[in-house]
């Protein structure tokens, strides 16, 4: 479960203080599929970084599964990311000259999981994204965009995280392929995974059950879609 309580984030350079997030609070229950939507410059990237334990807020509380991680050190944040969070990026961010299987097992290496178990879990994760098994031994740079994103989703799943965080996952894909990817998220959510989708496109956001609108560092609206 995710609980944000009056989260702010400010950057200070030499002359001024820039307030990117100005006090955001919301709660996301386990198993929800939520979209966070906002125009560029709204602070949604910063919000995603905080949600994904890549950064800490300047003030406010972030409770992840009951634990306040707002003041965690870099090392502690890395631990949270390792165990609780799976990322899906717009640019896929796969290792281009590694196989699909090796890409998906990468997070498990940092969790010190032995090789055989890694491979089994990677296969299971890949199957649940619907990727053709024949592709498992291909190098990731031999895949299409849609296939690569599904590998990335499998990678995000493989550690069994509390939260899957997707940052503009369809941004580099055509509409049709994008639909397949969003559909994959839906299926995963049906299985019980908590998914947060960051986007600036309404069409994409509507695939979620709930949309949180961000503008100028503040939450302006919350909407429940017809997908519940």
């Amino acid at each position, binding site marked *: 479960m995710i609980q944000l309580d009056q989260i702010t984030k400010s950057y200070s350079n030499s002359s001024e203080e820039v307030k990117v997030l100005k006090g955001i609070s919301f709660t996301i229950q386990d198993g929800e599929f939520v979209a966070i939507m906002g125009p560029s410059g709204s602070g949604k990237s910063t919000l995603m970084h905080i949600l994904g334990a890549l950064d800490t807020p300047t003030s406010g509380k972030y409770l992840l599964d009951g634990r306040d991680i707002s003041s965690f050190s870099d090392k502690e944040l890395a631990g949270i990311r390792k165990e609780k969070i799976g990322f899906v990026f717009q640019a896929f*961010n796969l290792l281009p000259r590694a196989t699909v299987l090796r890409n998906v097992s990468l997070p498990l290496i*940092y969790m010190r999981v*032995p090789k055989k178990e890694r491979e089994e879990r990677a296969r299971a994760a890949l199957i649940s994204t619907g990727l053709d098994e024949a592709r498992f031994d291909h190098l990731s740079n031999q895949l299409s965009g849609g296939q690569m994103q599904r590998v990335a989703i499998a990678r995000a799943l493989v550690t069994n995280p509390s939260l899957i965080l997707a940052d503009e996952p369809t941004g580099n894909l055509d509409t049709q392929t994008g639909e397949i990817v969003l559909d994959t998220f839906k299926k995963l959510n049906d299985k019980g995974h908590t998914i947060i989708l960051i986007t600036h496109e309404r069409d994409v956001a509507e695939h979620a059950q709930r949309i949180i609108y961000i503008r100028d560092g503040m939450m302006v609206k919350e909407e429940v879609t017809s997908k519940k």
Partner: protein
Amino acid sequence: MRISDLFEETYMALSTNKARSALTILGIVIGIASVIAMTAIGQGSQASIQASITSAGSNLLYVTPGQQRGVGMQVSSGRGSAQTLTQGDADAIQSTITLAKAVEPELSKRYQITAKGTNTNTQVIGTTQDYVDVRNFQIDQGTFLSDMDIKSQTRVAVLGPTTRDDLFGEGADAIGQKIRINNVEFKVIGVTLTKGGSGFQNPDDAIYVPISTAQRYLAGDQYVSTIAVQAASADNMTAIQEQITELLLERHKISDAASADFSVMNQADIVATASSVTGTFTTLLASIAGISLLVGGIGIMNMMLTNVTERTREIGLRKAIGAEEGDISKQFLLESVMLTFLGGAIGIFLGWILAWGVQYFGVTSTKITWSTVFLAFGVSALIGIVFGYYPARRASKLNPIVALRFE
């Protein structure tokens, strides 16, 4: 990260771009190969010099005319430059120094030698019958000089095999033949067994005549160029050295030992001096080769830094999925060490081939010791650690958010 996974990740990263990895370690390969080859040449020279000095005979002391010098090698002494040692000195040593097993005076000079239709210029060594024992020679054909020959001043000569080949043709039977040394006729009575060797005076290219004959017919004087004294055992060497010095100081009527007109040199001293000279030579060569290793190390650091920059997004990704600073720095450091270690291994192999080649083509003998090999491995691993540390640290300190945005 598990150790086995760390190695696998590192191996994968390196083999992804084999060409680049190969070019990166080229500097190390060349550096280590040169160090190995230089050290091998140096150590080989050292060993062969030591061998040729000790093959000249063991437990030897050399009494030579001229001032005592720090570096006294046999080559530079007694070439007729100073005439302060006489046959009388040799006889005195023979009769008074009882610890000496054999006393063998020599009178050496180069002369023009002629035989029927041929001639050569070679070293003529006037000596006694003890020469074969003291100097560790053997007779191949005929006989060596005898006590009778010395006493009677007979004009007989024993040839070294190379001189025999030069005068009479390769492998010819020279026994009984006549030669003229400095226009004096001598009869050949023997040929010595080949000793091999290079560098100094080649022992195979020489003629041995009775010292008394040399003094009477060739030099016209009673002086000697060297007196070799063989000790009964190694323990007596120092005692004999002192006794000879005392005796000759008295005979030459010199009161101050510092202004002696002769030197008594211990064979062990000569070996030690030669060793230290070649040792310095080896160190110098290896240091020069070491500079190329330094350059190789800088190349590694340069390449690793480029590597880190190119893989910024990958590092960001690894951190995003939970890699800690330690995981990242260990991976990059290990990449660097693996590269240099591999470079070292190839370099050692290459250096070994170079050293073998130098020896095979007869330039000089070479010697590779295990300690050199271990040192080379150690140095190459150290280079990987030292020059890989900074890039690895830079990689580990990258901010994942910034890194993921990197183009």
